[in-house]
């Protein structure tokens, strides 16, 4: 999300000035990121993930004045989410007997890397047309079926696969363009 660093700085400044719409936009922009770290990287239970999610944004709201670099809100949120998720896991281990399933060493780091790649890809996704963003998000991120997508977008179900294929190709071009033709792997 480096391309949006300036935008992030502006958004944080608006939040600090008390603009509630800006705060809602910040939450919306980073909700998936915080959620993914809690659920995918640390595999928190839903109830713990919700507490971590709310705590992250509550602390962010309280400590906006302490941010050294407004443009670095994403790494700041990431670090806070990781710290709170680890605290939650440790608390769970103290309470549970036997302890909850241990994660494989390195699994968290790998998951965090994938999430960072996904965030970069999301920036490329934002460059596509609304219909392309919508169909790709619904199919891959929201895990909706062809039938659900067809009903929601009011298009024939038989055209969904080809739309997805075309939009993925556009996404690859946009992503490679952003990353100097580097392979995302």
């Amino acid at each position, binding site marked *: 999300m480096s391309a949006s660093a300036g935008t992030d700085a502006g958004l944080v400044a608006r939040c600090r000035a*008390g603009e*509630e719409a800006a*705060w*809602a936009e910040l*939450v*919306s922009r980073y*909700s*998936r*990121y*915080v*959620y*993914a770290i809690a*659920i*995918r990287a640390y595999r928190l239970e839903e109830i713990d993930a*919700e*507490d971590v*999610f*709310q*705590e992250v*944004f*509550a602390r962010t*709201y309280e400590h906006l004045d302490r941010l050294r670099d407004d443009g670095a809100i994403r790494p700041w949120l990431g670090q806070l989410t990781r710290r709170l998720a680890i605290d939650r896991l440790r608390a769970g281990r103290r309470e549970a007997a036997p302890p909850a399933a241990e994660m494989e060493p390195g699994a968290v780091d790998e998951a965090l890397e*994938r*999430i960072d*790649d*996904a*965030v970069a*890809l*999301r920036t490329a*996704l934002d460059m596509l047309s609304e219909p392309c963003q919508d169909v*790709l*998000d619904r*199919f*891959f*991120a*929201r*895990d909706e079926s062809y039938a659900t997508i067809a009903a929601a977008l009011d298009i024939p179900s038989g055209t969904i*696969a080809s739309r*997805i*294929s075309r939009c*993925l*190709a556009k*996404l*690859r071009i946009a*992503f490679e363009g952003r990353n100097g033709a580097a*392979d*995302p*792997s």
Partner: protein
Amino acid sequence: MKRMAGYEPLPEERLAGLLAELPPAPEGWVQAAAMLPAARRELDRIVTLAEQDAEFRARTLADLESAFRAAGLEPTRALLDAARVRLEGDDRPR
């Protein structure tokens, strides 16, 4: 990873996998977080009232969730914890 019918793997396959890495957070969670400014305002109002009325304070502390719900706000644990800290902090002798 979700596969499309008749879909050729890589490089789009990898992109598809990355798209799936960022599912949307539950809508209620996002809404509750987005409502934080309003929630903090309500908390300030409650604390001000509690400072003036010990009975209100005791009643509110006994059922914080209802106090926030009555104001149309989702009583998340983070918000309830913040409220308890501020209201119980008022226990000090004055």
